[in-house]
């Protein structure tokens, strides 16, 4: 292996005034092999979707080793209550102290000056919410893969647009409807989706709005990767297309968007996984230039 790996005990993520001694987290730091030049930009992978630090089908292990092989320190870690870390689990909207502690640990152990937060699903959402909470100047870049912005209204909009529209264009649907094969439930679902789409927004800022604010205020670079075979990514794309704050944030020259053809939510096809790794590496090179 052209890399070396070590376990890190990540402490210091206090919650509340007294701190929470139970919130020690386990992390794995991947570093370039001894003797190799170490890049000043480290990547902290923010795991999402109830996964632990290796990721679905070890996608984060592979990513970390690939990036470390190219010279970058990479940390993967388990949030409290996930994987091997003890404690009560923390909702993704409240992980800022933990991401902060992970960044501190990465800087200490690797000597890196700059941090890229790399998040999938609600790990991408948590990364933006971290910036909103902390405005951490060490964070120079963001890689967001299939960010999670689900809301009842957004999901309904996506379903109607992508699912029902597609179904309505299929001859089989009409044959089935004619023959009585489309259940009453399906029609009720469509009705409910149309109603939720039109529902008004609540007054306080939702986590999606906080994410959009954070992204607008972020001066570093962003690599946004969206899988074409993923509902979560479709919902996010829908957000970009229909909500002004999101659209404006995404249209800035600091944002690079890449649609990953044929990929699913976790990029389980080897070709998709390799493409994500290659995209990340190419983008990292522009970041450090």
């Amino acid at each position, binding site marked *: 292996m052209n890399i070396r790996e070590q376990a890190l005990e990540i402490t210091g993520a206090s919650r509340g005034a007294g701190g929470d001694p139970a919130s020690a987290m386990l992390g794995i730091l991947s570093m370039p092999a001894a003797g190799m030049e170490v890049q000043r930009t480290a990547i902290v992978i923010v795991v999402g979707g109830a996964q632990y630090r290796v990721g679905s089908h070890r996608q984060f292990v592979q990513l970390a080793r690939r990036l470390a092989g190219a010279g970058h320190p990479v940390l993967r870690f388990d949030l409290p*209550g996930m994987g091997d870390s003890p404690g009560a689990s923390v909702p993704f909207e409240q992980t800022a102290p933990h991401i902060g502690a992970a960044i501190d640990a990465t800087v200490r152990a690797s000597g890196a000056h700059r941090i890229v937060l790399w998040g999938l699903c609600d790990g991408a959402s948590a990364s933006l919410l971290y910036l909103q909470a902390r405005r951490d100047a060490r964070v120079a870049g963001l890689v967001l893969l299939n960010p999670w912005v689900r809301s009842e209204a957004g999901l309904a909009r996506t379903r109607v647009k992508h699912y029902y529209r597609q179904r309505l264009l299929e001859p089989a649907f009409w044959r089935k409807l004619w023959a009585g094969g489309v259940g009453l439930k399906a029609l009720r679902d469509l009705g409910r989706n149309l109603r939720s789409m039109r529902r008004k927004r609540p007054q306080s800022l939702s986590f999606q709005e906080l994410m959009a604010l954070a992204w607008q205020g972020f001066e570093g670079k962003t690599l946004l990767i969206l899988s074409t075979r993923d509902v979560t990514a479709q919902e996010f794309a829908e957000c970009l297309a229909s909500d002004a704050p999101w659209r404006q944030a995404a249209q800035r020259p600091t944002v690079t968007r890449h649609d990953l053809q044929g990929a699913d939510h976790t990029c389980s096809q080897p070709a998709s996984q390799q493409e994500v790794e290659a995209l990340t590496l190419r983008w990292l090179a522009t970041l450090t230039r």
Partner: protein
Amino acid sequence: MSLPPQAGLPQAFFLEAADGGQRFCLYHAPRGDRPLGRVLYLHPFAEELNCTRRVVAAQARALAKAGYAVLQIDLLGCGDSSGDFADATWDAWLADALAAHRWLAARAGGPIWLWGLRAGALLATQLASRLLPSPAEGVREGAGEGGGEPVHLLLWQPVASGQQLLQQFLRLHSASQWLGASPGDAPAPAQALAQGQTVHIAGYALSPTLAQGLGLARLTPPAPPAVTSRLVWLELSSAQPPTLGASADRAVAAWRAAGWQVQAQAVAGPAFWQTVDGGDAPALIDATLAALTPAAAPMP
């Protein structure tokens, strides 16, 4: 003033493997001076490892708190260990399990328990065969790689056979084809494996060598142990009251017939190995502690 002890992390380290790679391990030191026993944990197959990590961590912490020394190892190509899943073979996994056993045996004392979950139960059973003295050799010879010590088994939701697990895994390929994620004209995975090709299923590259080794693995009780060995067999059930499956009843009878002291039980809880947020299994953790810990000595 000393700080309250961290509700601690286990000791995380990499064990050097014979192939030059390293295996990620977690050691949960036992509370107290004299461990009640040593527990070696062997994880399940592919994504089931991820889905079960949380529940297993909770169990390992509970065992350590109760006085057991617990070692978890990630096998070759799994978890944080070196290598890709495509590099893994059943024999390499057995060698990893043996190396982990050696590490644990040197580290702590007390009876040895091999704790296997799902496919890990198959590996634990094969490891037990390697460690136990065969009846012909007898305890007198101190034969078997376990040095003649008894070896106990703790099997969580054991799979009936490696073949059955393999078929279930290959079926995920058909599922992804229906969803349009895989090219429809590729040969069926079983056929590709038979032709010596590696197949990609649910993000895992499965080699024909691993498929073959897994396919041959059975839950066959090691020949009647010359020393008394215990088997604790625990399953989860959604039935009220929880009940063991029919195949478990048959398997357990075979272990009894082979001379093992068997305790088999179903407890209430979700099939947490099937989904990534599969929920907790507190009843399983309690049942495990109760089954392993010797009953309190009777009052004089």
